[in-house]
C-alpha cells in the first residue's frame, strides 16, 4: 500500500458510460495482485469528499502502467471520466487481498464468472492464471450486446461464453445460464459482479464440497484501509467468530462459503 500520483496516459470510453483509463505510476504502486483495488482521489475539492475504489483491470509491470475500467455512475466516476492525458491523479493502493491462487495445485480447471462492470478485474486474474498454466473458461454476462465489452480480451484467455439479458449476444439469460451442469467440471471459480449474481452463484455451489470458489465484493467505504469499520460484510460464524470482516482490508475477495450476502 502506497499513496502517490499517477499520470493519466489515456482515458477513453469503451462503451457508453464505460471507460478505460491507463495511468503511469511509480514503481511500488504497480506491485498489484489480481483482485486488488486502488482508492482513487477524483478531485482536489471536498465535494465529492471520499476516494473511489476501482479494481485493477490490467498491469504492465515493465512500463509501470495500470489499467482501470470503470462505469460512470455518479459524481465521482463522472469526474474520473473527465481526466485528460497528462492529468495527475492521486492513488492509494494497491489495497486489499486479491484473488488467491487455487489452494491445491492439482486443481487446474478454473472458471471466471463475471457480470457487467464486475468483469474487468477478472481479466488480470485470467492472465495471471494462464501464465501459471491453469485452464481458464470465462462466463460473462451483460445487459445487451450494446453494453458488452472486453470480449476479445477474454477470448484470448480461452473458452468464453456470453449471456445477455436481452439475448442480443450469446445466449439469452444470465451468467448462471451459461453453466452446463453435466459437462462443466470446474474445480475452482472466481466471480465478480452484482450482489444478486454473487448470491445466486454462492447458492448454486454451496453444497458442492469439491469446488473452491472466491467472490469479489463491493461495499461503501470510508478509509479503504481497515481503520473505520465502514465496509464490513457479515461472515459465517463457522469461519470467523467476530461476525464481520472488512471488505477493504480482509477482502474484497473472500472464499465463497465464508460470507453472508
Amino acid at each position, binding site marked *: 500500500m502506497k499513496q502517490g500520483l499517477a499520470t493519466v496516459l489515456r482515458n477513453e470510453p469503451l462503451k457508453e458510460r464505460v471507460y478505460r483509463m491507463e495511468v503511469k505510476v511509480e514503481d511500488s504502486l504497480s506491485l498489484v495482485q489480481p483482485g486488488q483495488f486502488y482508492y482513487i482521489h477524483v478531485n482536489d475539492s*471536498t465535494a465529492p*469528499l471520499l476516494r473511489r475504489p476501482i479494481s485493477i483491470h490490467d498491469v504492465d509491470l515493465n512500463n509501470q502502467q495500470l489499467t482501470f475500467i470503470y462505469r460512470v455512475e455518479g459524481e465521482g466516476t463522472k469526474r474520473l471520466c473527465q481526466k485528460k492525458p497528462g492529468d495527475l491523479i492521486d492513488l492509494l493502493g494497491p489495497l486489499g487481498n486479491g484473488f488467491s491462487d487455487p489452494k491445491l495445485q492439482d486443481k487446474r480447471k478454473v472458471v471466471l464468472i463475471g457480470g457487467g462492470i464486475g468483469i474487468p478485474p477478472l481479466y488480470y486474474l485470467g492472465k495471471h492464471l494462464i501464465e501459471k498454466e491453469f485452464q481458464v473458461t470465462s462466463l460473462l454476462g451483460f445487459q445487451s450486446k450494446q453494453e458488452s465489452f472486453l470480449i476479445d480480451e477474454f477470448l484470448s484467455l480461452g473458452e468464453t461464453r456470453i449471456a445477455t439479458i436481452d439475448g442480443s449476444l450469446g445466449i439469452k439469460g444470465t451468467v448462471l445460464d451459461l453453466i452446463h451442469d453435466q459437462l462443466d467440471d470446474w474445480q475452482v471459480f472466481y466471480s465478480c459482479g452484482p450482489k444478486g449474481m454473487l448470491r445466486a452463484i454462492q447458492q448454486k455451489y454451496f453444497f458442492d464440497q469439491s469446488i473452491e470458489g472466491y467472490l469479489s465484493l463491493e461495499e461503501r467505504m470510508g478509509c479503504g484501509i481497515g481503520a473505520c469499520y465502514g465496509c464490513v460484510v457479515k461472515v459465517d460464524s463457522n469461519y470467523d467468530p467476530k461476525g*464481520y470482516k472488512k471488505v477493504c482490508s480482509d477482502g474484497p475477495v473472500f472464499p465463497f462459503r465464508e460470507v453472508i450476502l
Partner: protein
Amino acid sequence: MKNRLEVKLGDLVLKNPIMPASGCFGYGREYAKLYDLRLLGAIVVKATTLEERLGNPTPRIAETPSGMLNSIGLQNPGVEAVIKEELPWLSQFQTPIIVNIAGTLVEDYVAVAEKISAVPEVAMIELNISCPNVKCGGITFGTDPKVAYELTKAVKEVSKVPVYVKLSPNVTDIVSMATAVEEAGADGLSMINTLIGMRFDLKTRKPVLANQVGGLSGPAIKPIALRMIYEVYKNVSIPIIGMGGITSAEDVIEFFLAGASAVAVGTANFIDPYVMPKIIQDLERVLDEMGVGQISELTGEGWNYQ
C-alpha cells in the same frame, strides 16, 4: 529552542496538538504501516464498550456534500480485548493514549472506565456520551445536562486518569451541556461529535444507510464545530479538544482561535492517510506567517475581536 507546537491538556503535555478523532483511526495499526505514530501528539482509539459489539448492518457509509455519514454502531471487541490486544501494541509508540469509552448504562461506562484507566498506558479517557448510532440511552446521555452530569460524576469517581467528555452537537444549548459536565468534574471537553443526518437512494427510495440515520462528519460541519467551541470556551475553564472537519493546518488554527487547546482529525484521514503528519509539518509555516511563537498562545484568541 522551545517546541512551538507543544500544548498542555491539564498536566498532560503533548508534543503537538494533533491527534486522530476516535473511530477514524481504528487502533492505529493501519496507519502505523504508513508512518511512525510517534509523530502524533496523542493517539485516540475507537469507542470501547464493556462487551464486544458487532455494530450496525451495512451500508454504514454514505457520502454528502463535503461530508460523510457513518453508522458504524460502535463495533469493537470489548474492553478486555482492547486491553489485551491493542493497548500493549500501541504503547510502543510512547505517545499518550486516549481511550474513547461508550456504553448503554451508567454501570457499563463505570466498569469500562475502571478497567481501562487502570492500564498504565492509558493517559486519558474520552467519554463518548454522544454517539448517535446505537439505539440506546446513548443519545440521552449526550442531550440532557442532568444525565450527562450524573454519568460524568460516576465515571470520575472510578477513573484513575483525566476524563474528557465528548459532547454531541445535536443539542439546543451546548453551553449548558458543557457547564454541567464541568461541574461534575470533567477534566476537559472533546467537541464535537457528529451531527445526525441521512441520505436517500433514488433507485431503492430508501435511506442509503441500513441504520437509516448516521453521524455527519467532515468539512461540512466545521462551521458548526467552531461556533460551539467558541461559545463553550467563554463559559468553562477546562481545556477543549476541538474537532469537526479539520483537513489542514489552517483549519487547526481556526479551532485554536475558537478556543481549542488541541485538536483531533477524523474524516480527513480517509481522504489523505498522511494528513496528520502533513498538518504537523505545515503548522510551523502557518505560525510563521501569522507571527506567532507558540501555538498555545492562540487558544481562544478569536474572542479578542473588539
